C-alpha cells in the first residue's frame, strides 16, 4: 500500500500530463496556469509554514551538546560541536546544512552473539549528500532558462558538471548521480526491514516524483531532444508575466513541467519542509552558554511551591531536636 499508491500516483500524473497535451491540447493549462499556481502555492506555503514554526517560541535553551563545554580556561572547549558563541553556532549550522555533519556520525549498531558491535555506515550520508548537492546544481543549471545572458558562473557550473565530456549534448554527471542516489534511497527503504517498517507513503511519493522529474529531464535532454529555444521562450515569458505557448515543444517537456509543478505544490505540506526546518532546530542552532546568560521563557508563569516556612512549620520540632537552626522558635 505504502509503496504502490505513491508509485501509481506518479504514473497517473504522467498520464494526466500526456493526455492533457496530446489528446486535449491543454497547453495553456499545463504550460502556464498550473506552473504559476504551483509556484504561488510553493512560495506562500513555504513562508506560512516557516512563520508558523516561528510563532511557537523556544522556551528553554536546549542545544544537544556534542563536545566539551567551555568551562575552565585550561580545558580545551569544542567550539563548534558545543558552541559557546554565535560564531560557533554559525559554523555548526553550516556544517550541518552543507555537509550533513550529524549524518556523518552515523553508525551501524548490530548484535553479534551477545556483543553489541558498531560498524561504519556512511552510505546514507554519502547518498544524502550526493542527492541534495546534485539537486541543487541541477536547479542552478536551470537558471539558464530564466536569464537573458548566461553569466559566467553558470557556464562554469555547467562546464564542471559536464566534465566527463561524453555525448552530445554533453552528459551532466549530476543527472546520473541524482538518479543513482534516488534509486539507492529507495532501495534502502525497502531492503532494510526496520526502515521498511517505518516508511509511509509520504516517504515513497517524493522519491518516485523526483525520480520521474529527473528521468523525464534526462529523456528530454538526451533522447527526445526537445526544442530548447521554444522552452526558453516559455520560461522567459513566465518572467515577463505575458507567457506565450511556443510551437513544437514535445509532450515530454510538459510531463517534466507538470511533475515539477506537483512537487512545488506538494512541498510545503510535506516532510520536504525539513529544508526550512533544519535552520530552526533548537537542539542545533542555540549557543550552549546557559549558565553564562539567562534565557527568558516568554510564557513563563508562577507556580505553586512549597516554601521554607511551610517546611519549617511541619518539621520545627524535629529540627530543633537535632539542633538545626530554625527561623521561628
Amino acid at each position: 500500500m505504502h509503496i504502490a499508491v505513491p508509485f501509481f500516483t506518479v504514473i497517473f500524473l504522467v498520464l494526466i500530463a500526456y493526455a492533457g497535451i496530446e489528446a486535449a491540447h491543454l497547453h495553456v493549462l499545463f504550460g502556464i496556469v498550473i506552473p504559476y499556481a504551483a509556484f504561488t502555492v510553493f512560495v506562500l506555503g513555504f513562508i506560512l509554514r516557516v512563520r508558523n514554526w516561528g510563532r511557537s517560541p523556544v522556551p528553554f535553551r536546549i542545544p544537544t551538546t556534542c563536545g566539551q563545554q567551555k568551562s575552565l580556561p585550561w580545558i580545551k572547549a569544542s567550539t563548534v560541536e558545543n558552541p559557546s558563541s554565535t560564531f560557533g553556532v554559525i559554523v555548526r549550522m553550516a556544517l550541518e546544512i552543507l555537509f550533513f555533519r550529524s549524518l556523518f556520525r552515523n553508525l551501524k549498531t548490530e548484535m553479534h552473539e551477545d556483543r553489541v558491535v558498531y560498524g561504519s555506515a556512511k552510505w546514507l550520508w554519502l547518498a544524502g549528500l550526493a542527492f541534495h548537492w546534485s539537486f541543487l546544481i541541477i536547479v542552478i543549471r536551470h537558471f539558464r532558462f530564466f536569464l537573458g545572458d548566461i553569466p559566467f558562473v553558470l557556464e562554469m557550473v555547467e562546464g564542471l558538471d559536464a566534465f566527463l565530456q561524453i555525448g552530445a549534448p554533453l552528459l551532466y554527471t549530476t543527472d546520473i548521480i541524482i538518479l543513482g542516489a534516488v534509486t539507492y534511497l529507495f532501495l534502502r527503504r525497502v531492503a532494510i526491514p526496520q526502515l521498511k517498517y517505518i516508511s509511509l507513503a509520504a516517504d515513497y511519493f517524493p522519491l518516485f516524483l523526483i525520480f520521474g522529474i529527473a528521468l523525464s529531464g534526462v529523456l528530454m535532454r538526451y533522447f527526445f531532444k526537445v526544442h530548447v529555444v521554444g522552452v526558453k521562450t516559455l520560461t522567459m515569458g513566465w518572467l515577463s508575466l505575458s507567457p506565450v505557448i511556443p510551437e513544437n515543444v514535445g509532450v515530454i517537456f510538459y510531463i517534466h513541467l507538470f511533475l515539477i509543478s506537483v512537487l512545488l505544490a506538494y512541498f510545503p505540506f510535506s516532510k520536504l519542509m525539513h529544508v526550512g526546518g533544519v535552520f530552526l532546530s533548537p537542539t542545533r542552532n542555540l549557543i550552549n552558554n546557559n549558565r553564562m546568560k539567562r534565557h527568558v521563557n516568554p510564557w513563563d508563569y508562577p507556580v505553586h511551591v512549597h516554601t521554607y516556612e511551610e517546611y519549617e512549620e511541619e518539621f520545627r520540632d524535629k529540627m530543633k531536636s537535632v539542633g538545626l537552626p530554625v527561623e521561628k522558635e
Partner: protein
Amino acid sequence: MAKLPKPEELAKVDFKPPKTGWMDTPANLKPGTFCWGAKAKNLQVVDFPNARDWNPTEDDWKLPKEWEGTVLEAMADRLSKYRSFKLFLDICVRCGACADKCHFFIGTGDPKNMPVLRTELLRSVYKKYFTNSGKVLGKLGGARELTYDVLKEWWYYFYQCTECRRCSVFCPYGIDTAEITLMAREFMNLLGLNTDWISGPVSNCYTKGNHLGLEPHTITSSVEFFLDDIETITGIKVEPTFNRKGAEILFVTPSGDLFADPGTYTAMGYLMLFHELGLDYTWSTYASEGGNFGFFTSNEMAKRLHYKIYAEAKRLGVKYIIGGECGHMWRLIHQYLDTWHGPADFLEVPRSPVTGTVFENACSTKMVHVTEFTADLIKNGKLTLDPSRNDHLKLTYHDSCNTARGMGLLEEPRYVIRNVCNHFYEMPENTIREKTFCCGSGTGLNASENMELRMQGGLPRANAVKHVHEKYGVNMLANICAIDRATLKASMDYWVPAVGVTGVHELVGNAMVMTGEKERTQDLRLEPLPGEEGNE
C-alpha cells in the same frame, strides 16, 4: 513480580519487525517491562488531576471523562508553546539514522523503541487532528485517531524512553525524541497516568525536600554515620553544618547519595574534601535534593520542585552554590533553572576560595559543578593526592547522558579521575562522551518491577563495560550521577558481575591525603587498601 530471564537469554535480541504494521500492532504490556501505576495519595499531594489508585494490567485505567479532548487541547497548547515540539513533529524524513541509536531498541529489538517510531506514535495523532494531509489521507498519510489502545501504547513506550537524547546527536535535523517524550508524559499526567516510582518521589520531594522523603533529623543522622566512618578511616572528625546562615557556599546534591551504597561513599568523599579545604559551606535539609523527578511528569512540576534551590540560597545568604554529582539534576540546572527561577542576582559569580578561580561559565546561574570545582583544585595543586590508594581499581568512566549531551561536561571528571587513579581505561569511542549510552533506567524508570526492561536498556552500556573488563581487567565503573550509582550497580551485577560502581568523589576521598590523618588502612568502603590486605 515477573521473573527476570537469565542474561544469556536476554542477550538474544530479536530484531525482526512484526508481520503486522505498527498501527495494527497494539502494545502488549509485558510484565517486567513497565512500572506500577501512581497511587492516589501521591498525586493528591501535588494537586495532579485524576488522582486514583489504578493498575496498568487491568483493562480499565479509570480515565477521566472526555480524556481525548483533554489530550488534544493540551497538544494544541504545547504546539503553540514549544517550537521544538511542533518542528520535530513536522520535519522528520524517516531516514532511520536514529533508529539503532537507542539503547532500548538495541536491547529489545522492538521497532517501537526506534526513536523515529516512538515519535511516530504521537506524530500520527498530531497528523490526524492538526494537519490537512492527515485529515484528508488518514492512514495512508500516517495519521490515526487517538483511541484507548493508542493511549496505552503511548503509556508503554513513552515510559521506555529515558530522554537520554542520544538519538538527537545522530539526527540530521537534531530531532530530539526526549522533547516528544516530555510532551507525551505531560499529556498522560493530565489523565493521571503516572507511575508509582515517579509520583512517590515527586510527592516526597515537594513536601520534604528530597525524593527519598528523608526528614531533617534523618538527614543529619545519616550524615552522622558517614562521619563516624570517616573518623574510623582517617582519624579525623569532620563537622559539617546544616541550614547555616551566612555560609559562603550552599551545597546541593541528590538525596540518593545519603541513602544507599555506593552513593554514600561519594557523599563521604564530598564531606572529606570540603573539610580538608576548610570550606565555609553548608548543607540544607530543605534544599536536600538536586535531582528532580518532577521533570519526568511535567515542566510545571519540575519548576515547582527546583524552586527550593535558589530560595534556600537566598534565605541562607550564601554567595553561590556548588552542585554534587548527578545527571538529570545538572541538565536542569544548566538548561532550565535560570530560566525558571532566575535571575539569581542575589548571588555572586562563583569564585573558588581556595584557588581564586572565577567560574565565568557559571556567571549567571551561579552554580558550579563539583567536578569543575575539584578539577580546578587539582590543577592548581591544592590537593595532596596519593593515587596509589586506588591501585586496586582498574577504572572506566561512564558519561551520564545529561551531563554529556545537555551540557558537555566531559573532561572535568576525566581530569579528576586521572589524577586520583593510576589505572584508567576508556570504553569504545562510540559508547562514550556525546555518544554515551544511558544506564537504561533514567527518567524514573529505576523501579524494580520493570527490571527486565532496565536490563535490556542497560545492555549496550554494560556491553561496553564488559569489553574493557575483558580487555584491560577493568573492575570499577566511575560516574557522576546518583541514579547511575544505583542503576549501574544492578546492571553490572546482572551483565558484568565482576565490575563495581563508584562516584568520582569517592575516588577523590580515597586518594586525598588529609592534614593530620592517621595512616590509612581502609578505603571509604572500609575495605583494606592495596598492600594492607594481609594486615586485617
